[in-house]
C-alpha cells in the first residue's frame, strides 16, 4: 500500500503550445546529439544533450523542473551516493508505480545535466535530483522542491570557488525568499555552515550525522567568531557552539551512531548497505529522513537502499588487462579522509589530475593524511603523479610514480602482494577526471 503522501500526484505544468513545441523540438535535437556522442564513444551524452536542449530552449531547466514533486540533494561530498540511496528508497516505496520517478543517476548535476535527465521522462511526476551547490538557489526558485537535503560543506576546487561561505549565503537567500512555501530541508546538524545556510528555511529536520567537525568550519559563518566544542567526553565528540552569537548545533531528530540510525520515534535502524564506509551510513541517514518525509515506510526505504551497489561507478570493480581494481572517488580533502581508510590493498593506486574538474591547484595534497599509508606501497599515477610522489616522500611512504593510468594498473597487478595484504581487488582512489577516464575504459559509463 502506498501512503497518501507518496500517492499524491503533481499537477503537470501547463505550458503555452508554442513553448511546448519548442521544448519537444529541443528534446529531439538533444537526443540526436546524445546519440551521436555515444556513437563517437564520448560517454553517455547527458551533458551534450543538456547543452543542445538549452541552446534551443534557454528556459529548459526551469520549464522541465516545473510541475513535478522534487526532492533535491546537495552538498560537497556524498551527493551522488545519497541521491542513489534516496531514489532507491522512493522507488521501493512506489512499488509498481516506480515509473513515476526520474533521477539523474549519472551524477550530471548542473542545469544541463538536470534538464537532460528530466527531458527523458516528461511524464514522471516525481524527480529525485542531485543538485550542484551552485544550482541549489535556482532549484529552490524554479523547481520549488518539496524536500531539499543539505549534506555538508567543505573546501573543493578553490581555484573556482574562492569562498565556500558565499554559496551558503546564496542558499540562505533562496530559502528566505521561498518562505513558508519553501522545501522541508533535511540538514546535517554537525556542519556549522549547513546549519547557518538552512537557518532561513521555514521547515528543517536536523540529522546528527556523527561526522567530525571538519577543518573547514573553524569560524562561525554568522559572526566570524572561532567556534568551540562543548560537552565533550570519552567517546562523545560533543557539539559545536558559537561563543559570539546564538548559532549553535541544533538538537537532531535523526541520530547516527555505531553504524545505526536512530529515528525520531526512538527506533533504531541498521542500514546494512552494500556501499562501504561510515560516511555512507551518514548519507543513508539523510536519505532515510528524506524518504520518510516523502511518505515512504522506514523499513521499505531501508530495503530499497540496500539494493544500491555502485552509484555512478563509485566502489565499482573493473578489470584492466587481467588486473582487477576497485574504483574509489575522492574529490577533495574531506573525500580523501573518507576514502583512504577504505583502501586496504597493498599496493594501492592513487590517481591525481588537475584539470578544471579536479581543481587546478593540487596544494590540497598536503591536507590529506597520506602518512596513514606508511608500510604499504603506493603507485602514484595521473598527470600530477610527481606532486603526489613528493608529498609521499615527505610523508615517509614508499612509492613509485607511473603517470600513465593503464601502466600504473598493470604495474600494480604485477607487484608482489605483501603477506597480510587482503586478497581481492587492488584499491584505486582517483580524483574526478581519472575516475571518469577509468569508468570509460572499463565500459562502465
Amino acid at each position: 500500500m502506498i501512503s497518501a503522501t507518496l500517492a499524491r500526484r503533481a499537477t503537470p505544468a501547463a505550458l503555452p503550445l508554442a513553448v511546448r513545441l519548442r521544448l519537444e523540438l529541443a528534446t529531439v535535437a538533444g537526443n540526436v546529439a546524445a546519440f551521436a556522442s555515444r556513437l563517437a564513444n564520448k560517454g553517455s551524452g547527458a551533458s551534450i544533450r543538456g547543452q543542445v536542449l538549452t541552446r534551443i530552449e534557454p528556459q529548459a531547466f526551469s520549464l522541465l523542473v516545473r510541475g513535478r514533486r522534487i526532492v533535491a540533494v546537495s552538498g560537497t561530498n556524498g551527493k551522488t551516493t545519497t541521491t542513489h540511496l534516496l531514489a532507491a528508497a522512493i522507488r521501493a516505496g512506489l512499488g509498481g508505480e516506480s515509473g513515476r520517478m526520474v533521477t539523474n543517476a549519472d551524477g550530471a548535476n548542473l542545469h544541463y545535466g538536470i534538464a537532460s535527465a528530466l527531458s527523458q521522462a516528461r511524464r514522471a511526476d516525481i524527480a529525485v535530483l542531485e543538485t550542484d551547490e551552485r544550482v541549489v538557489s535556482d532549484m529552490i526558485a524554479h523547481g520549488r522542491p518539496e524536500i531539499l537535503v543539505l549534506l555538508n560543506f567543505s573546501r573543493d576546487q578553490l581555484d573556482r570557488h574562492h569562498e565556500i561561505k558565499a554559496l551558503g549565503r546564496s542558499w540562505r537567500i533562496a530559502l528566505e525568499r521561498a518562505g513558508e512555501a519553501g522545501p522541508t530541508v533535511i540538514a546535517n546538524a554537525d556542519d556549522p555552515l549547513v546549519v547557518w545556510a538552512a537557518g532561513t528555511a521555514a521547515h528543517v529536520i536536523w540529522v546528527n550525522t556523527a561526522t567530525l567537525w571538519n577543518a573547514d568550519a573553524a569560524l562561525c559563518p554568522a559572526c566570524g567568531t572561532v567556534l568551540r566544542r562543548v560537552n565533550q567526553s570519552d567517546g562523545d565528540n560533543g557539539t559545536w557552539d558559537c561563543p559570539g552569537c546564538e548559532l549553535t548545533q541544533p538538537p537532531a531528530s535523526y541520530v547516527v551512531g555505531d553504524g545505526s540510525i536512530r529515528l525520531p520515534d526512538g527506533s533504531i535502524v541498521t542500514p546494512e548497505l552494500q556501499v562501504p564506509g561510515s560516511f555512507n551510513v551518514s548519507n543513508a541517514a539523510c536519505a532515510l529522513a528524506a524518504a520518510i518525509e516523502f511518505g515512504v515506510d522506514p523499513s521499505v526505504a531501508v530495503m530499497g537502499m540496500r539494493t544500491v551497489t555502485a552509484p555512478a561507478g563509485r566502489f565499482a570493480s573493473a578489470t584492466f588487462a587481467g588486473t582487477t581494481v576497485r574504483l574509489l572517488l575522492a574529490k577533495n580533502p574531506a573525500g580523501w579522509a573518507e576514502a583512504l581508510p577504505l583502501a586496504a590493498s597493498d599496493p594501492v593506486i592513487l590517481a591525481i589530475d588537475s584539470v578544471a574538474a579536479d581543481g587546478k591547484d593540487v596544494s590540497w595534497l598536503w591536507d590529506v593524511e597520506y602518512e596513514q599509508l606508511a608500510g604499504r606501497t603506493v603507485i602514484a599515477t595521473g598527470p600530477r603523479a610527481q606532486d603526489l610522489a613528493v608529498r609521499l616522500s615527505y610523508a615517509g611512504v614508499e612509492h613509485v610514480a607511473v603517470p600513465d593510468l593503464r601502466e600504473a594498473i598493470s604495474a600494480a597487478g604485477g607487484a608482489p602482494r605483501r603477506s597480510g595484504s587482503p586478497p581481492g581487488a587492488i584499491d584505486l582512489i582517483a580524483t574526478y577526471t581519472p575516475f571518469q577516464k577509468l569508468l570509460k575504459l572499463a565500459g562502465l559509463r
Partner: protein
Amino acid sequence: MSRPVEIVLVYQSLLGIYGDRGNAMVLLKRLEWRGIDATLTIVEPGEPLPATGSVYLLGGGEDAAQISAVRELKADGNLFRGLENGAALFAVCAGYQICGQTFTVGERDEVIEGLGLLDVTTRRGTERAVGEILTRWQRPDGSETLITGFENHGGFTYLGQGATPLAQVELGIGNADDGTEGAVQGRVIGTYPHGPVLARNAALADHVLEVALERTLEPLPRPEVDELHRQRVAFVRRQGLRA
C-alpha cells in the same frame, strides 16, 4: 645539547586552506633529513603561540579568517616576541597580506590594519589572480633560481620603502601585476604562491631555514623534488607561450 629547532604553524584552521601546512612539513623534514633536531608546534586560535619558535608560518585563508587571525595574533603577542628573538616568518597569500600595514576585505573593501611586519599594503586588484606563477628569485649569493607555485588572490599588494620584492615575475600576476612578487623585510618573507611553495621549491625552503638558523646548510639532493620543480617550470612556460 642545543634545543631543537621549533617550526610553528600558526592557526591552521584559519590560515591553512590551501595545503599550507605542507610548508611546515617540508621545513621539518628537511631539518630531520640533515640530522638536525626539530619539532613542529601547531597552534590553533585560542591557544598561546610559543615565543621560542625559529620559524613561524602563516598560510592562506578567507576574509573573515584574516580579521580573526590579526586580532588573535595581536592579543597573543608572542609572534612579535619570537621575531624580536631572531626567528624568521614565512607568510603565504592571506598570511602575507595580514603581515602588511593594511589590507581590505569584503564587498565594501573595508580597510583592516595588519600586523605591520612588512611595509606593504593590499587593496582589491583589478582582477583575481588565479593560476600557475613562475618567478625569478635572486638568492643571497647573487645566483638566480626559478620559483614555481599556484597563485590565487583577489588583493594586489604594493610595497613601501621598507620592503623589497622577493622575486621578479616571469609568468603570472604576483604582487600587483607590476613585475614583482612577494616582499622581504629583515627575517620576514611574504609571498603569494601556494603549491605548497616550499614543497615545489627546495632552494627557497632551505633559504628560510638558513635565515632562521643564521648558517649555511649542507646540500640535500632529492632528485624527486627537483623533478617536480622541473615539471612545473616546463608546464607553466608551455602554458605561458600558448596564452
